[in-house]
């Protein structure tokens, strides 16, 4: 074995360092009692002032959920989740319309500050009147912030509405645009799709709704910020994005949670619908609390994300940087129905400490000439396990469809695991599918080369890891790319091996 003492020292350094976003906000909360039953669903629906059809939709999902069992096939291990021991609704109590930043609940404000949200957006998020007209030098990014169960604020609504773009919390959309919601909600991820999507459909509390009308290029990046704050809550948000013919939108999602000893559940559903010639770019930087160095606490992130390319030449691109969560269970997928539609999946998953990640994608080729690209980079360190699980399915009508998949795993230390489980199914002789996967560690030569030129071992690893992930990081929008690089560095800090 090569220099065990050095490796051990390195491993020690690799222990997850302090989670920067681990603070808790002391704020007055409005909470539903623990447990899940029809009454709770009625309560959620009533709090959200939802119409009758929505309640019926939720109850249908709830009854489906009761007949289902949690999926067992993923390579993750966790104690059974007691779904009755959770609060399904928690919202910060909000005072009406503060006039300036001084009147805003200072705790809420401090939270945004700590999260690094720019001042102007902070003011808007806290609901300060007239904040949108304040000027600063930041490039405009419209933000929808979801705090536990509710969306606290959405910024730049007016600018967006001038362009015809609808960007609002989904609870508002249910009230204001029932026709759109009725038509598309559950059309990509049906209520009974899987255990967690059924649960989400029954109890989802908020999330974002985006509609880009025909021929519109969304004038700014849209962004949602998710934060789980309250104890013993589960966050169930639902995002629905519809891009009509020839429209373009780029959407970012970020997440954090306080540091706690118990595990918390996050089960979201994201549905994307791209019509003819539309383009949706969906980027995620997922940084939920991963648990401490002994694997205690952390978020269970069980997410169903799916996109439907309904029209010809529609294009959906998923980009994700996954560094947080105790357990990640997530497969952003594309259903390529439209002729010539394109699905892309770019992913960097970093696991450290005792984290477990089972993530990947599904590309279902239905239409002719559809193509998909999958690029998955996995980095495991500490005692973590990460799995790439991906499906490529070519149906008989998908003439001349094309797929390229590349999965690379990097192992840091000998206590971790990296696994690749691709499923390739083809019912068509005119298609072309390629899949490649490699697993290796950081080569000693590369490390030596960097160190010899004066970089510390840590810097060298950061450099090499960033290089390893470059193909994916370059797909991220500018603002996120910088953040993601730093995040990678922090997640792997001291993990040099």
């Amino acid at each position, binding site marked *: *074995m*090569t220099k065990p003492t050095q490796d051990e020292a390195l491993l020690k350094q690799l222990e997850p360092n302090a989670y920067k976003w681990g603070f808790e906000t002391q704020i007055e909360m409005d909470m539903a009692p623990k447990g899940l039953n029809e009454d709770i669903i009625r309560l959620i629906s009533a709090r959200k002032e939802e119409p009758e059809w929505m309640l019926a939709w939720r109850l249908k999902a709830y009854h489906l959920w009761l007949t289902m069992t949690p999926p067992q*096939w993923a390579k993750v291990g966790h104690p059974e989740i007691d779904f009755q021991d959770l609060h399904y609704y928690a919202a910060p109590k909000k005072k009406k319309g503060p006039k300036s930043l001084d009147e805003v609940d200072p705790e809420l404000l401090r939270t945004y500050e700590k999260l690094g949200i720019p001042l102007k957006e902070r003011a808007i998020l806290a609901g300060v009147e007239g904040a949108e007209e304040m000027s600063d030098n930041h490039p405009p990014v419209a933000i929808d912030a979801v705090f536990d169960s509710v969306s606290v604020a959405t910024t730049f609504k007016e600018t967006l509405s001038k362009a015809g773009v609808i960007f609002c919390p989904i609870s508002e959309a249910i009230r204001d645009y029932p026709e759109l919601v009725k038509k598309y909600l559950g059309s990509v991820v049906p209520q009974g799709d899987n255990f967690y999507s059924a649960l989400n459909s029954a109890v989802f509390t908020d999330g974002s709704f985006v509609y880009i009308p025909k021929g519109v290029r969304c004038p700014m990046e849209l962004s949602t910020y998710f934060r789980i704050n309250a104890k013993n809550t589960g966050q169930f948000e639902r995002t629905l994005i519809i891009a009509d013919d020839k429209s373009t939108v780029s959407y970012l999602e970020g997440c954090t949670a306080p540091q706690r000893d118990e595990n918390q559940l996050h089960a979201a559903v994201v549905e994307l619908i791209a019509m003819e010639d539309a383009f949706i770019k969906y980027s995620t930087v997922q940084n939920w609390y991963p648990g401490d160095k002994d694997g205690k606490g952390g978020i269970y992130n069980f997410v169903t994300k799916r996109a439907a390319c309904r029209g010809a030449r529609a294009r959906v691109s998923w980009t994700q940087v996954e560094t947080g969560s105790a357990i990640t269970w997530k497969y952003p997928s594309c259903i390529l129905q439209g002729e010539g539609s394109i699905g892309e999946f770019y992913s960097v998953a970093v696991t450290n400490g005792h984290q477990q990640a089972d993530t990947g994608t599904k590309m279902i080729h239905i239409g002719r000439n559809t193509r998909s690209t999958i690029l998955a980079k996995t980095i495991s360190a500490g005692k973590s396990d990460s799995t790439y699980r991906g499906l490529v399915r*070519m149906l*008989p009508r998908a003439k001349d469809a094309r797929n390229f998949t590349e999965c690379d*795993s990097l*192992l*840091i*230390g*000998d*206590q*971790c*695991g*990296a*696994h*690749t*489980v*691709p*499923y*390739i*199914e*083809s*019912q*068509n*002789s*005119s*298609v*072309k*599918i*390629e*899949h*490649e*996967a*490699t*697993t*290796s*560690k950081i080569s000693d030569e590369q490390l030596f080369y960097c160190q010899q030129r004066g970089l510390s071992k840590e810097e060298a690893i950061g450099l090499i890891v960033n290089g390893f992930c470059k193909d994916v990081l370059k797909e991220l929008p500018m603002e996120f790319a910088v953040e993601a690089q730093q995040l990678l560095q922090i997640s792997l800090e001291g993990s040099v*091996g």
Partner: protein
Amino acid sequence: MHKNSEESKDTGLSSLLSRVKGKNTSSEQEKAIRLLSEAGLPSRRVENWKYTDLRWFNQHQFVKPVPVNTQQVQEWLEENVFPLPNLSELPRLIIANGQIIKEFSTLFDDSNCQIDIKDGVYGSLGRLQKDIMTTLNYAIGQQTLQLTISKGQQAGTILFVYLGYGQNDGLVSFHHRLNIELQDHAQLSVIEMNAGCGEYFTNPVCEIKVGPRANFEYNKLLNSSLESYNCANLYVSLADHATYRQFLISKGSKFSRQEVYIDINGEWSNASFQAVQKLADRQHADITTVFSHLVPHCQSDQNVKNILTDQSHGVFQGKVFVHQKAQKTNAQQQNQALLLSDQAEINTKPELEIYADDVKCSHGATVGALDEDQLFFLMARGIPFHQARDILINAFVAQAVEDVNDPIAKQLLKEQLGVEVVEDIT
């Protein structure tokens, strides 16, 4: 034949199990029967059986084999083995409908191998709980054939022939058990031919222990009747510096599943698995492999090629497992599929499960039709389409049997693949 009216309604698993119920059974057999009656057969919801459906099982009533007519066996041998001088000279073991046909088996006279025939099923490598077809073998199997190559013995090449003949009274089933042990420095090469006619089900289990520095080559030709069903499980355990090479050609059977489990238990050993599935009509063939690297410094490589025409369905599920201790592992896995018809279907799942960091592991999978540029290249030089197509298919499969060491086996496998046999110049 001898069943009363109530029993004859039995189908599927229960008709199989009723065969052994109430007999004097060993504890292993009892355990297997209990497991099967409790769990039943796996459905497609079970991850390992995702692509292979066992529903046909319940559409049949299973029956015991009746003694085979040796005339039939002789005819088969006269047609397929005796005309080939190389093949006919090999020490051979002929098993027809689960019975050893001693008059044609010359292996018993061979001094290089020791053969033991024991009543009951014995083994040490199979996992009862997990591998359903092994459990079935334990439950129904009657005898174990034990073949030992003693220390330092160079046993050369031997021939196994498994023949199956369908019966009119139901689906006849055979559950052979073969254990092969190679001691230190021993060498053996096996050619196995599977053939037959009519409808039958074979469920053989084979265990191979390759001792330190021993060398084993296993060439298997699956050319069973196109109405037959085949579920074969193979377990291999390798000691240090051992070499294991397998070549498999799967052409026959209406339904076949080959499970291969290779445990690498000794350092510096080497395992290789090359297979070709050539399917037509409505054939379904499945190759499922698990290569477990449990110690450092070992190598493995897998190469599976599928050529699918008509409405055939090919499946490959391959897994490379690398234990945390197995540093310096070098594992390679490759799966290629050539779809020659629009109704053919391929499902593949090449899987890596890795817990050691200083390893080189890779896998690749490709699915596609013949390359149009290559076809054009040949046709532009005056070669008609069909011939050009055959040339490209030949090139695609020929590689799989290129590395067979045993010259007799190499020739046989090439012929079976329809690859032109070119004499080695060297």
